[in-house]
């Protein structure tokens, strides 16, 4: 993905700071204009897309199976909250750990190959775990896990209150977003970008690139797990759609539309795609056709994505 990813300089940029402040303001004002449950769904997918972008945008690894970590984390946190009576924060931590654990196992296998092979292996592993999810007794098969209780945050704050739930999701999203921001601007992040640009040279400089790639992979899957777990609590549902490979495709689409390798791209992309799905839900399979069309257009004409194009136009970093 070298050609179209925007080159990032090491120093923190002012445009990213302004962008961040703007994003926080928009997030706090948005529930006045948009249905909050839709916004919370957007934020879960935005975190998911940011986690995915950490790999594709900064390490150059296309994982085509990220639904595995998102979906399984959502199953585990839904089950923990419903059957074991976990509080929401513990359920989300459990989901995050599941994402990290599965990511570690899948990463060890997949990191051994690069490029297209890496994409195909991650996809195949995700499909394997999809079949486990279909057969495992605790996932509820076709029905999924329904009526997941939102519970009380830290045993105190009642999350059935819409504002409390919304602010919690905003806090989780911003936490994940800032963590990713911190990672890509750290020395570790610089090594990741070096691997993206020229892995052979990074190896010759003495970096054990496999370890760096594996750590980045696990960080990404852990955050994808956080996103999936949060979604299960917010929408009170964990289902097969979240582990199916079409979900892996959707997160690629969100990131591509927003802009690969941009800090804000995945957030904008998630918003565009989720709102589009929501508006077009009545047209059935046309949603899939339109998504496919967006894929084709983005790849052919629009490889920098929305945020990438804006950043290029204004000559700033976003």
């Amino acid at each position, binding site marked *: *993905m*070298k*050609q179209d990813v925007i080159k990032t300089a090491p120093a923190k940029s002012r445009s990213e700071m302004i962008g961040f402040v703007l994003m926080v303001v928009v997030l706090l004002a948005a529930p006045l204009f948009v249905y909050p449950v839709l916004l919370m769904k957007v934020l879960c997918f935005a975190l998911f897309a940011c986690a995915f972008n950490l790999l594709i945008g900064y390490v150059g690894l*296309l994982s*085509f199976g990220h639904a595995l970590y998102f979906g399984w984390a959502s199953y585990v946190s839904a089950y923990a909250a419903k059957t074991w009576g976990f509080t929401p924060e513990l359920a989300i931590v459990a989901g995050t750990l599941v994402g990290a654990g599965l990511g570690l196992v899948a990463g060890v*296998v997949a990191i*051994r*190959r690069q*490029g*297209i*092979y890496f*994409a*195909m*292996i991650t*996809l*195949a*592993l995700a*499909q*394997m775990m999809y*079949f*486990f999810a*279909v*057969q495992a007794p605790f996932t509820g098969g076709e029905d999924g896990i329904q009526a997941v209780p939102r519970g009380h945050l830290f045993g105190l704050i009642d999350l059935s209150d819409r504002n409390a739930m919304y602010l919690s999701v905003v806090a989780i999203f911003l936490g994940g977003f800032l963590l990713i921001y911190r990672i890509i601007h750290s020395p570790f992040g610089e090594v990741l970008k070096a691997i993206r640009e020229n892995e052979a040279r990074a190896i010759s400089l003495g970096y054990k690139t496999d370890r760096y790639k594996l750590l980045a992979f696990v960080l990404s899957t852990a955050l994808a797990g956080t996103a999936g777990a949060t979604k299960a609590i917010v929408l009170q549902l964990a289902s097969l759609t979240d582990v199916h*490979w079409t979900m892996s*495709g959707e997160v*690629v689409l969100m990131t*591509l539309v927003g802009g690969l390798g941009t800090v804000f791209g995945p957030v904008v992309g998630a918003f565009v795609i989720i709102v589009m799905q929501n508006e077009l839900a009545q047209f*059935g*399979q*046309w*949603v*899939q*056709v339109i*998504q*496919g*069309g*967006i*894929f*084709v257009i*983005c*790849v*052919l004409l629009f*490889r920098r994505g929305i945020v990438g194009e804006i950043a290029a136009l204004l000559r700033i970093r976003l």
Partner: protein
Amino acid sequence: MIEIFGIPSQALFGQLLLGLINGSFYALLSLGLAVIFGLLNIINFTHGAQYMMGAFAAFFLLNYLGLNYWVALVLAPLIVAATGVVIERLFLRHLYHLDHLYGLLLTFGLALIIQGLFRNQFGSSGMPYPIPDSLRGGQNLGFMFLPNYRAWVVVCSLVVCFATWFVIERTRLGAYLRAATENPALVRAFGINVPRMITLTYAFGVGLAALAGVMAAPIYNVNPLMGADLIIVVFAVVVIGGMGSIMGAIITGFTLGIVEGLTKVFFPEASNTVIFVIMVIVLLIRPAGLFGRTA
């Protein structure tokens, strides 16, 4: 009834045959992927949709034009290959100078479009396609009953696979193809039209997928989603076999079909996942796949 390892022989050989049939489709599809990947360096994610289009083409030819299976077996792959020519000229051509991943993303988008359109038109339930009259019935082999149509599928795909292998590995045309993957500029200097060769190669790979679709129609019904999940299993087959190798695609395709069939007899719960488990084991031991060369 004879029992082998406590399993009735009918069931064992029945599943073995089913595995061999699935293996035929895995082999044909992974062969098509290998041919396309070899020259275009593109993972053709549309392959599953093109397999489905082959089955639908046969269905249309029969129900709207009254053309039977044998005509469809020739015409349907040609029709679908023609759509492949359009895809290559319109879209893929613009991506060769970019990272390979863009080809994967583009063909993924195309697969979504094609499957969505067919689902809009035909719903998700399957439509029956009759077995041709001349292949009805079967042979009693004593230890099992062998339906003629299934025997035909296995034999036909074996012949097509080895014919393809022969053309690519043993003829002058194949030598040009292989040379063009190594050094297109040099091959062009010999006066060979490389862009046209690339277009036709893509069309040929797509035609192989469509041929598999026609052969699958009487067994699995005709369904817009028939290729969607199959393609990921085929990706796993390709990873196990090693992308560089035509022979690897054929041998692993058949072998993994049989392994899957046997798993269905002994551990039915694992039958959906056994190929992926094998993929993990193979990758841990040989990251380039069984027949692949390390890059």
